């Protein structure tokens, strides 16, 4: 990045399995209005808009940036629409960061949403590809073998996934916007039905409706306030193909490469010591220890030990997903931007009841496709 860029406003809807009183445009507009109010700005202050969401068939509107131009306040402005599978929310935010870093745009509004209640995600996420037998298994069925491979290779005890899920729910209870908040114990998780071995019902993300909007600004404009900005120290997206012989699906090379690239740009040599809070994209419980390893917070096959020690809980060394994460709120296209936005709120000191104390550096992360698309950002309280 050639120029400093900061988050100056964040707004999100409440997330739920169905937001029945709003349509897609109204839902998106709520997030946009909240982000602009948070930044003390209005539509006239925005130079460009970057929209992200997961597959259009989830709501049945093709290229919805056309329909949403009015709701987004985009009339006579530039708008682009990003789609990089599950990673899209974080990639969309980083695309907006690039727009500001280019020097061409002073303030950019970035928005991500999904209204899963409008469609059927299991159907939309079970695509048919030529010469590939359809799995008709949705995302859970797709990722379960990767989780099984992780357990086998790391020697993890079988209860680790349940520990992750119960902790995430505990965290979600402190997040006013989270979808699932009912208290839940490790025993509750272990007692819930097995959906796709080793993933149980309570270790699975919900289908959510929700939207998030973020305002980004260049250094000069960010310093005008009214908020303390969250500075983007580094961000990158890396991708790898599905069918490479010998590809490591458990700890994909694209994720490791992306993390290494981002840490180098942010001047981070030891993420475990230099990052105080992380928001990972964890749609199924086992992905928390898997990403702890993939992102270099611990050695390969040691992620489950971090969870077993409880070091990823609130009040411990590295709180992971203090917002409750994807396991408790999953408007798919927005989920990655929620990780980026929650990381921003943490470094701004504005995460409310789920604030981690004294955060200097926070990591936001999302992944998508068959664990192929990776998007990582480091946000900091300091320029």
């Amino acid at each position, binding site marked *: *990045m*050639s*120029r400093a860029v900061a988050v100056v406003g964040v707004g999100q809807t409440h997330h739920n399995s169905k937001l029945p009183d709003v*349509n897609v445009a109204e839902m998106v507009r709520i997030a946009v209005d909240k982000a602009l109010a948070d930044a003390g700005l209005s539509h006239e202050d925005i130079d460009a808009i970057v929209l992200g969401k*997961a*597959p*259009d*068939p*989830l709501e*049945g*509107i*093709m*290229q919805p*940036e*056309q*329909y949403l*131009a*009015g709701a987004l306040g*985009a*009339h*006579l*402005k*530039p*708008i*682009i*629409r*990003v*789609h*990089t*599978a599950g990673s899209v929310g974080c*990639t969309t935010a980083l*695309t907006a960061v*690039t*727009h500001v*870093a*280019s*020097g*061409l745009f002073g303030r950019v509004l970035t928005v991500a949403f999904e209204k899963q209640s409008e469609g059927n995600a299991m159907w939309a996420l079970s*695509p*048919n*590809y*030529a010469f590939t037998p359809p799995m008709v298994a949705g995302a859970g069925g797709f990722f379960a073998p990767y989780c099984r491979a992780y357990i086998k290779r790391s020697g993890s005890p079988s209860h680790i996934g349940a520990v992750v899920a119960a902790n995430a729910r505990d965290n979600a209870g402190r997040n006013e916007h989270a979808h699932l908040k009912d208290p839940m114990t490790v025993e509750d998780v272990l007692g819930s039905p097995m959906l796709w071995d080793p993933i149980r019902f309570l270790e699975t993300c919900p289908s959510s409706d929700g939207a998030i909007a973020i305002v980004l600004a260049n250094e000069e404009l960010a310093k005008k306030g009214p908020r303390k900005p969250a500075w983007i120290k580094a961000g990158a*997206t*890396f*991708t*790898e*193909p*599905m*069918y*490479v012989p010998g590809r490591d699906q458990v700890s*994909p*090379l*694209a994720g490791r*490469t*992306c993390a290494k690239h981002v840490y180098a740009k942010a001047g981070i040599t030891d993420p475990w010591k230099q990052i105080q809070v992380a928001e990972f994209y964890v749609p199924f419980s086992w992905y928390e220890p898997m990403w702890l390893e993939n992102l270099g917070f611990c050695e390969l096959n040691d992620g489950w030990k971090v969870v077993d020690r409880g070091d990823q809980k609130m009040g411990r060394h590295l709180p992971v997903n203090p917002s409750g994460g994807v396991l408790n709120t999953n408007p798919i296209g927005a989920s990655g931007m929620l990780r980026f936005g929650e990381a921003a709120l943490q470094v701004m000191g504005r995460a409310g009841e789920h604030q981690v104390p004294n955060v200097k550096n926070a990591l936001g992360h999302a992944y998508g*496709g*068959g664990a*192929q*698309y*990776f998007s990582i950002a480091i946000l900091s309280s300091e320029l």
Partner: protein
Amino acid sequence: MSKLRNVAVVGFAQAPIVDAEPHRTAPEMLYPVVKQALASCGVDRKDIDYQCAGSSDYIDGRAFSFSQVLEVMGAWPPVQDSHVEMDAIFAAHLVWVKMQAEECDTAIVCGFGKCSEGSPTHVLNLQLDPFYHASLGLDHISTSALQASAYMSAKGVDDAALAEVTARNRNAGARNPDTQLRKATSAKELQATPWAVTPLREGYLPPIGETATCLVLAAEGKAEKLCDKPAWIHGVDHRIELQTIGARDLTRSASTKLAADKAFAMAGLNSGRDADVAELGSTTPAEELILRDALGLPSGLGGNGAKDGPAVNPSGSPLCGNPLMNTGLLRLAEGFRQLSGRAGERAVGGAKRAVVHASAGHCLQQNIVWVLGTERRWS
């Protein structure tokens, strides 16, 4: 305008546009095209910093359609990558922005879309407001007809004029070996074709086709090494309008006008007339007339379209082939081909500056305007 980084189009390849390619999948169509584009610059894939594709899940009939082309774009070992759910010309714009941010120096942009595997008419209906527009059963032809009708009644343009504009494009397309309709025709012949949706005749509408495209972009320092005659980007801007068709003045394109004003200011052009070539993303003859007004080009009526001002649509325009998700990128490619001596029989002699336009959405809702030149813009 402050000084920007000089970025150029340095290579391009495409599959010829066809009605349907029944024997190859989208990745199979794209693979040789990526190889050809890279070979045209003499560059290895490993020396490309960034890749970005433009495509649509709905056009391909499956979610995450873009993830199928990662292998053929060369994403192993892992690469920096993105994808826009838009015409690939917007991916090219994102790459240009990324180069301004100094996040990459070289990039490939790919477009693909297997339009023959679905029903574009039904798919493009789903692009409209689901409550007030889509439920009326409008498709891209009926909304284009509404716009054509509004323009004709406001400007006193008749059916013969639309036929004349179309014939000019079709006759240009006859010299383009990569386009879909390559048969010369006459205005009279076109005027004898039946109505599709009045006031548009079947002869005035392009076939929807399919292709695969790959464009190579590079920043100054690399661009000169990859291409003997790079097409330097002098200016670019894009804008969208409200979708609501009843709330817009369909007789003009406000977003094209604004994007052109910004792109021309960046490039130091007074109007589209200052260019030698103009390549427009018009999919009906009425759209061409509206875009000519917005870009400050000669009206295109009364026979002055060919001689006065820049050569307009030397490729034959989308009227000779409309492969969705690639249609826009092909306009940028035509600008590159014209300026870099790669336009074959249809070359506009001595062309030094090109204006390129592409559109998305119904009734020219979203528009992008580029200015390309044979010389660097900023020194």
